[in-house]
């Protein structure tokens, strides 16, 4: 069962993240654009999985913000943690991410161990706590 859905348009970054996550014991499925990413996520969830989404922002076709909005618009995907992983790491971008329902924000160039830690924490978090935490981040972002 895939436990990480990786969405990034850069093939090297996909290769890097896949290598790191797999060495850390995860099962990774990766997409090079937002639409494919959404499709892979839905399929994984339909198969009974609860993956962590690692999502880039600047991508062809639909960007990471739109993917995030689509995920959060779907109530059945509420328990899915989303980690934004992007070069756009200004305060306004972070606020935008949390405002759209992201669970974590990793700025590129990321520290691979930190990314692994974040993903592991979110994967292990129970849904109730995840939603409470997300709501708190959302409130903070509104301020």
């Amino acid at each position, binding site marked *: 069962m895939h436990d990480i859905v990786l969405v990034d348009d850069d093939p*090297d970054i996909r*290769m*890097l993240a896949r290598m*790191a996550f797999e060495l850390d014991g995860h099962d990774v499925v990766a997409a090079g654009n937002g639409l494919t990413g959404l499709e892979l996520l839905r399929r994984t969830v339909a198969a009974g999985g609860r993956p962590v989404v690692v999502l880039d922002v600047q991508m*062809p076709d639909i960007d990471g913000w739109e993917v995030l909005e689509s995920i959060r618009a779907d109530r059945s995907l509420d328990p899915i943690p989303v980690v934004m992983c992007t*070069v756009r790491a200004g305060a306004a971008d972070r606020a935008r991410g949390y405002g759209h329902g992201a669970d974590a924000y990793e700025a590129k160039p990321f520290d691979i161990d930190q990314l692994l830690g974040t993903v592991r924490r979110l994967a292990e978090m129970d849904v109730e706590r995840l939603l409470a935490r997300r709501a708190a981040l959302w409130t903070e972002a509104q301020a």
Partner: protein
Amino acid sequence: MDRGGFALEARGGAVVTFDEPLQVGRADHDTIDEVAELRRRRVVLFLCRAFVATVLAAAAPFLHPDGDWLGLGLAALYVPLAAAAPRGRRRAPRWDLTVALAADAGVLLAFGAVTGRQTEVALAGLLFVALHTWADGRPAGLAMTAFAATSQVVAGQVGEVAAAPTTVLTTATMAVLLAFLVDDQSTQRSRAASGLQLVSDKAEAILAGIADAVVTTSADGRIRSVNRAAESVLGCDAEAASSVRCGDLVALRDGARTLACDGRCQLLELHGEQTVEVLRTGPNGQRQPLLASATPLVAGDGRVVEVVHSFRDITSVKQADEAKTLFLATASHELKTPLTVIRGFAQMLRHTGLDPDQHHQATAAIEARATQLAGIVERLLMTSRIEAGHVDLDPTLCRIDEVLVQRTRELESATGREVERGVPDDLPLVWADLDGLTTVLDHLLENAVKYAPDGGPVVVSAEVDGDEVRIRCTDDGIGMTEEQRARCFDRFWQAEGTDVRRFGGTGIGLYIVRSLVEAMDGTISVESTPGHGSTFTIALRRYPPRPAPPDAPAAEAGSDATGTSIVGEFMKQVGMPVPDRPAAER
């Protein structure tokens, strides 16, 4: 005066020549004084000569048997002299008057010699000198005039001279004095009037010359005048503008608020005399950012009689600003993405669990992305060199076909995309900097691949056209709209926010390409259809220039004899094989 000062202070811009009314006032007065002085001297000289002519005509019959004719003749001689009194805007030099004076004195002395009445003529001459001196503005002239007049009276009384000429002289003197008095007053008046006229002309000239639109309105917003720049900044016709209200012409928005112009100027009400950024809604609905200010023109009783508005079009400043912001965002993205890969794989290399394949993947990715980073940094540096005007290109004679084949093969091996080459192998040499040309071609080829992501064909061709060799690079990618096409060589420009997202890039590639091509004395152009791709065409000067037709004048002497060896020497120096073709073409 006030009005001029107001209008110019209202601009609020960086050009502040009129911000110190005192200095301008002083300068104006100098000009006014000069003009008035010239005018006075001209009038005085004219009167002097009229006076001499009158005296001669009146006195001659009493002094000589043929006096009637002699006097009339001399008087007639003076008419053109009087008319030739100094004129013009420049201060007449002193010698002008001195020469006139000497000529006049000569005529008088000759008259005395002919008539044998030197005494009277000498007295008249004295009076004449006095008038001239007065004309020069010396106080002594007044005293001498008085002395001459008095001496005439005294002379008449002692009966040394005939009564009639003395009376004529005295009367004429009085008439001239009176004329001076009258003239002096009218000079004062005209001086004030011409002073006002000058200041008003100056204000008009400045208003017409500045690049900011200046619109004056009545207190209730009716347009009284617009300057020339208003026609380009606000797109209004000076004639038509005078019939509309300011609010209708300018239609400003301050953030979300519309600045209405009903009865009172909102710009003035809200911001006082500060310069503020506002948005104007143009006639076609387009938004135009303006730097605006309003300054009231207050009458003596405190009433606002006019409002002077100034508007500066800051569209280009805003665009440059936005382009720079976008550039910083995209450049940081472009730099951070390879850095992410490099940093991540470098961290992975510490991991003991990597198999040899993964180890190889990591090092290969690091190497490739470091190379990419170096390229980006090189582009940034190149841009800054271009900006600073430090592009050092050294155009040499290049085999364009070889360069084209080499660069396109490089692209093919790097991207796996196929390039169709239409490059004849008998192209003439061109003047180009080899490194610069390589950079240019690589950029164009990269773009062709990048903006045609579906893997369509990239076509590169070259042909001779007159004195130029044209190189074309065609893709069947997303293409550009007309507006995008027009701006694509601008610095920091990128097609759209969405394209930045889709295609990345720093927006400096084509700017560098254009700058390099122009530095090589070439030209670049682009044709494009949205959805059907783009064709970039570079034209470089060929060598040798096209052979002249047989009946045309021969080429410059010497060039034929030495051309080949110079080229050969040149080619040897740059380490290229000396081709036979240029010589053969001759």
